[in-house]
């Protein structure tokens, strides 16, 4: 489904991703963990073109995005990729001038060309699924952080993405609200949604991830099935990181 080879990303004189390879199969829920600055979020943002990279390639389905693609090719590929890859931000980024329904139907109506009625019907279903049936007409400033993030997930799901990328979806939330959002993500995982989740929350990883990828200093230090990695971490970075997380 997603296959990344030899990705290099530099920011100024800082190497953020160094020869990174990574892949996700259909139905897989991949968790990316690791110390801050390891390139986790950057990888997600490269996949849907919010950031450029210097070398390597990203394949999403049949679309292959390379570092040296012309502007025209790049924008055509991104147009195609973004329709199939949903993104959930740490800071939610809800559209504050639209209510919950408005946020969810915006892209289906204006990007996919769905009728408003059909889009609203689906939006109500999705908002129901994330437990917000009573907040359909609320604006972001009327919602708690957890509620906002659930609207954001519904907004991403409305495009029926093949893959959902979640960039630290619970980091800006207090524990109670974080658990609301986690249970929504767990539901999605059970439903077979392919996902890549960048997170610091071990309980989220354990609850939803089928594979774990440990990033450190722009490289993938270790990866494998979740239980195997947690039961027997091979790499020193992994051990140190897991220790620190379970203490905190």
């Amino acid at each position, binding site marked *: 489904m997603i296959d990344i080879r030899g990705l290099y990303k530099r920011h100024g004189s800082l190497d953020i991703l160094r020869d990174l390879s990574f892949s996700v199969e259909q139905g897989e829920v991949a968790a990316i963990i690791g110390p801050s600055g390891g390139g986790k979020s950057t990888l997600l943002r490269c996949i*849907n*073109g*919010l950031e450029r990279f210097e070398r390597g390639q990203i394949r999403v389905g049949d679309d292959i995005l390379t570092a040296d693609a012309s502007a025209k090719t790049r924008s055509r590929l991104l*147009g195609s990729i*973004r*329709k199939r*890859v*949903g*993104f959930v*931000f740490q*800071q939610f*980024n*809800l*559209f*504050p*001038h639209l209510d919950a329904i408005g946020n969810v139907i*915006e*892209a289906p109506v*204006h*990007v*996919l060309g769905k009728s408003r009625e059909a889009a609203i019907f689906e939006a109500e279903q999705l908002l129901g699924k994330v437990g917000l049936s009573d907040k359909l007409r609320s*604006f*972001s*400033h009327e919602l708690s952080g957890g509620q906002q993030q659930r609207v954001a997930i519904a*907004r*991403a799901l409305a*495009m029926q993405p093949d893959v959902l990328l979640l960039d630290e979806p619970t980091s800006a939330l207090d524990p109670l609200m974080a658990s609301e959002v986690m249970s929504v993500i767990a539901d999605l995982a059970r439903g077979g949604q392919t996902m890549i989740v960048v997170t610091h929350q071990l309980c989220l990883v354990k609850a939803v991830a089928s594979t774990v990828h440990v990033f450190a200093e722009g490289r993938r230090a270790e990866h494998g099935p979740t239980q195997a990695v947690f039961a027997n971490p091979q790499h020193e970075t992994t051990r140190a990181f897991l220790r620190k997380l379970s203490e905190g």
Partner: protein
Amino acid sequence: MLGYRCSTTLGSPTPPGVPKRLRRGIVAQLFVLVMLGATLAPANVVAAPSPISVITPGHLVWGGDQEGGGPYVYPAEDDPSRVIGFEVELADKLAAYVGLRAAFFQGQWDKMPELLRTRKCDIVLNGYEWVPARLEMMEASIPYYVYGLQLLVRAEGDIRSWVDLEHDGPSGKRRVGVLGGSAAEKYVAGRLGGRVDIASYDGSTDAMREVETNKLDATVQDAPAAIFYRSRFPGLRAVEGPVGRGYYVVYARKGDTALVHALNEALSQLIERGELETLYRAYGIWDDAQRELYDIARAGKFYGYRAPAVEARTADGAESATRSVALGARKHGLDVLVAYGPILIQSAGLTLLLSCLSFPLAVMGGLLIALGRLYGPRWLRGALAMYVEFLRGTPVMLQLYFIFFFLPEIGIAVPAFSTAILGLSINYSAYESEIYRAGLMAVPRGQMEAALALGMSRMLALRRIIVPQAMRIVVPPVVNDFIALFKDTSVCSVVTLVELTKRFSVLSQSTQSTAELMLLTAVLYLLMSYPLSLLSRRLEIGLAPVAA
């Protein structure tokens, strides 16, 4: 008056009192304006069948500025939308003689030569002096009036002669007020330059009032104005007789010799038949100096200045005229409201129209400029930045002037009303673009990222997500600018539009009921701008707050 204004600005002047034309005129102008590119209509050049060529068939369009006041051209006291004055009557007579109908064209006095050159009017007939330098640019008729300059001082003051002016008063140099750009200004500068302080005014009566209220020591006015407004300024006294003899002539475009010949013939006839004398007696401005007109008429030619045959005297004690045109008593209080309220409201209508048409264009333009500067290609950003700096850095009056007086030089004639809308909206678009740029930049980056991540194109993201949020941010400053624009419409008087401020000045110059008119004008501006402030406040409250 609004209708009259608007139709004249179309380049097809009509006499006042044709309300249907008003609507059609405005609609036509709007239409012209909407058709981008068609805004620049071709110059209105129509050849009349007669050898005299005029810009509007059947009409002799004569230019003047009613702000100059009586007795030349000024608003009638019973109906301020109508102009009267000896030049109005003279224009009627001249036009009738050449088989045309006179149509008054309002323009700023000092811009008359430009208005003539750019074919906004056929002739200038408004106390314009015969000056050799002007003959290089315009054709002059024979004189229609021999004027002198009258020194006016406070009746109980210590100035008894021109010589007294040269000696400093109690507070230093004497201050002398004159009409800016007039012969009086040149005369005073020539005779007393350096020994007095000269203050120039836009109208004659402002300076007269300033003398009465002791802010000026004296004023030098063309004798007709001094005589005509005598009754309004009882505190003033004329000192010595008129000096500095000069001649009012009619100016026509360079090369319009057929018209000038016809006008000369008409003037000669009017003089010979005594019609001019009767007219001037009615206004109380006939004096012995005018006898020279008979010599000129008999010669049918005018060669310029010569020594005065008879020392000029003021018109005091002139023979009683069969008809008398004089000013009524100065109006006060509610009478002013009743007499001039309606016409001020009409002019406020033009102010409203100018603002309401140009501002939406400015806002649209500003938004496009801001988007271009933030999201456009590199070359466009540079070009737009220069555009904004240029327009913000030069006065709107200069820009209007450029459109109205310079573009016709290269074959693009823009009617006055369209010029005003175009000039104001272009100028304000520069300011609005800066507001929008700030507003767009204030929308958090994550908003664009979220929109892109949902598969939106940059364009769609701007239209659906970024601009609607920026709009909410910029409402207060934009409304603030709208209110500012209301007041800036007053510069449109340079392109011959009589909006509220110009109307105020015209009426104030000719009626002297300045305090009441000022109050009325201020109230009208407030009535127009205050609802906008309220609207702005409502929008601020009503719009959903933008949370990060």
